[in-house]
């Protein structure tokens, strides 16, 4: 736990694992984990932008999900991201929706 803000350390959502053996515990490989967090936000934001939302870091332990109108929610991990995104935006975030796929395909070139 962070003594400054009382925030608990990382969590155990399956997607939090870095793709390398032995990096499932939260107290090792801090730099790699931070890089991974940044990358996770970058990728999530590429999708969330389609729904008028953005994800930012909060204390290195959680994320802030915000809409353009300022509605904000703290989320712990990717498992909480999408239910929160649908709730805040009032829209369905469907990765199989053609507009979502087509925008990504255009982005990827």
């Amino acid at each position, binding site marked *: 736990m962070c003594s400054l803000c009382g925030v608990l350390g990382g969590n155990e959502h399956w*997607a939090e694992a870095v*793709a390398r053996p032995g990096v*499932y515990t939260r107290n090792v490989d801090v730099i790699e984990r931070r890089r991974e967090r940044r990358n*996770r936000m970058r990728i999530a934001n590429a*999708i969330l932008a389609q729904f008028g939302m953005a994800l930012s870091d909060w204390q290195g332990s959680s994320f802030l999900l915000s809409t353009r109108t300022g509605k904000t929610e703290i989320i712990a991990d990717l498992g909480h991201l999408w239910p929160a995104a649908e709730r805040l935006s009032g829209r369905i*975030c*469907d990765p199989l929706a053609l507009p979502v796929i087509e925008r990504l395909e255009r982005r*990827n070139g």
Partner: protein
Amino acid sequence: MADANPAFTPVNLLTGSLGSGKTTLLRRLLADPALSGTAVLINEFGEVGLDHHLIERIDETVVLLRSGCLCCTIRGELALAIRDLHSRRERGKLPGFGRLVVESTGLADPFPILSTLKADPVLRHHFRAGAVVTTVDAVNGLSQIKVHTESLRQVAAADRLVLTKTDLTDEITIARLLDHVRQINPDAPIIRAGDPVLDAVALLDHGEAAPGSHALPMHHRTCDAVYWSDHGERIRSFVLTVEEPIDWTAFGVWLTMLINRHGDKVLRVKGILNLAGEAAPVAIHGVRYLVHNPVHMTAWPDEDRRSRIVFIVDGIDPDLVRRSLTAFNGLGVQSAERV
């Protein structure tokens, strides 16, 4: 015998239609010395529980939950019963047990039982989902799968399928049943209960305990099948083969988004991934909204280095899944660096 007090005790779910031979199989498994350190939790729907008498082992590690079905009316009791077993084990009031087998009623949907382990704040730190074993009755299995949604879902969720009562029917009927079963669940190994040798540990061990076992399911790599049940469900199994390395972060964003929106229709997802920047593959495994921790395999099971993911879905278009994953994977680090 397994470690009597492991950090995460595997919980095996033994499921299957009413009368499909779950208790008979359980009795046989418990007779195996390799499973001597196994606690048992039996759920019966009837007012008077009988199954726990049939397994011929009555001690304090056998718990009966009756008068309701685990997946709905007494789901809370499941968590309490497992917590109680854990608590008594920790206090030395019970012999240690390295595995828990939950025998569900034939009516139970497997997913809520599995998700209880992840959702409960105590259980999630001490237990993990083990292999789901589903018994399929060779005589009545086909009609049960066609008529009962739960039977269909039990077959779809299985890590191992045990074909029972094969001595009571002919090979043509069995072949017809297997054809249907394979359309619903193309990758779970099928074991005949009538075989004289039954490797109890292999039947119950899950990939997390033995990473190499994730290589097992991939032997039906090319199967794409559609199965229409009599109750209108369009169960479809397909294998997604991805040539490019997969970006783990992009994959995590994609799969969490997919199961948030379609978790009730993704009956099962299982596969091995060739991750960008990694030499060895990673195995993934999920049942509806529940995804197990990924497992780092020590080596590839064969020469094929492509990612292969088996999906069993209800009414989802495989082409959309394929396109969507490819599009999300394009957001990965390597793609970003290329741009």
